[in-house]
């Protein structure tokens, strides 16, 4: 098709009067071509986004997974049973109120543990959310999140600074 002829306004008007003509103008108009090319990329971008999103989710799930502490056989056996450790972990978890945490309850649950006893409580706690919308945290992260620096240092004092 002669491009000089079609570029004339009168020719465009006559071509635009038919569907075939509209297609002809579309094929020739660089703006339409650009839009078509741009639109053709959108599915690729969406697919890439989905794949990256799934990959990131898997990565986050892997890196945020709970890794248990191992009991140290060189130290005395834990001074709490697994059931007691679970109970203490639950007490700590439930000590968070709507507006403030019950520090005394946390301190009581942590006190009196030996090294392997704390390991059991830590493992029983696993990863838990401190608030409804919060992210999951292990016991040490949870304590650091819920307590202020001074309270955190007092909990550390109870554990003789063994873990944090």
């Amino acid at each position, binding site marked *: 098709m002669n491009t000089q002829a079609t570029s004339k306004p009168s020719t465009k008007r006559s071509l635009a009067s038919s569907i075939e003509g509209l297609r002809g103008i579309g094929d020739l108009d660089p703006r339409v071509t650009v839009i078509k090319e741009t639109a053709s990329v959108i599915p690729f971008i969406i697919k890439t986004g989905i794949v990256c999103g799934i990959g990131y989710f898997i990565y986050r799930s892997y890196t945020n997974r709970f890794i248990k502490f191992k*009991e140290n*056989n*060189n*130290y*005395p*056996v834990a001074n709490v049973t697994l059931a007691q450790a679970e109970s203490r972990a639950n007490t700590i978890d439930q000590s968070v109120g709507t507006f403030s945490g019950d*520090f*005394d309850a946390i*301190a*009581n649950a942590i*006190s*009196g*543990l*030996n*090294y*392997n006893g*704390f390991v059991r409580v830590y493992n029983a706690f696993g990863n838990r959310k401190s608030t409804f919308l919060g992210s999951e945290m292990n016991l040490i992260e949870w304590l650091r999140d819920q307590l202020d620096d*001074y309270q955190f*240092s*007092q909990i*550390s*004092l*109870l*554990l*003789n*600074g*063994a873990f944090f």
Partner: protein
Amino acid sequence: MTVQQSNNLKYGIGAIALIGVVYLAVTSNKGGGATNDPIVNGNNAASFNAQNVANDLLEAMRYLGTDEEEVVSILKYVTQDQFGKVFTAFGKQQYNKTLGNQQNPTAWFDELPFENLKTWLKNELSTEEYNILRLKYPKYL
């Protein structure tokens, strides 16, 4: 099988069995408790000095306005047994319970009473802070 091959087989089995026994002996220390527990027994025995800790505590508490965080910091690595030694080393120090220090406005009239570490800590710390120490040192507080 020749005699030589038979002997080699016996020696091989014997060596494997010996390695297995040694391995089991080394790794079977389940909760033996040979090493001191870092929470119960602490791991600062070499550097611990009860008199120094007692002096640091007195210094943190003797003036107006106790540094509670300093007290917690001083006692962080002190185990219950070690605290017993600190308690003894602290002994009894003159203490003005009303002012919370060692000032004596009526020195011309009478001297300040001598109080032990328990009384000092109970007066200088908040109830919550003192309760934390009680959880750690139930034998002495």
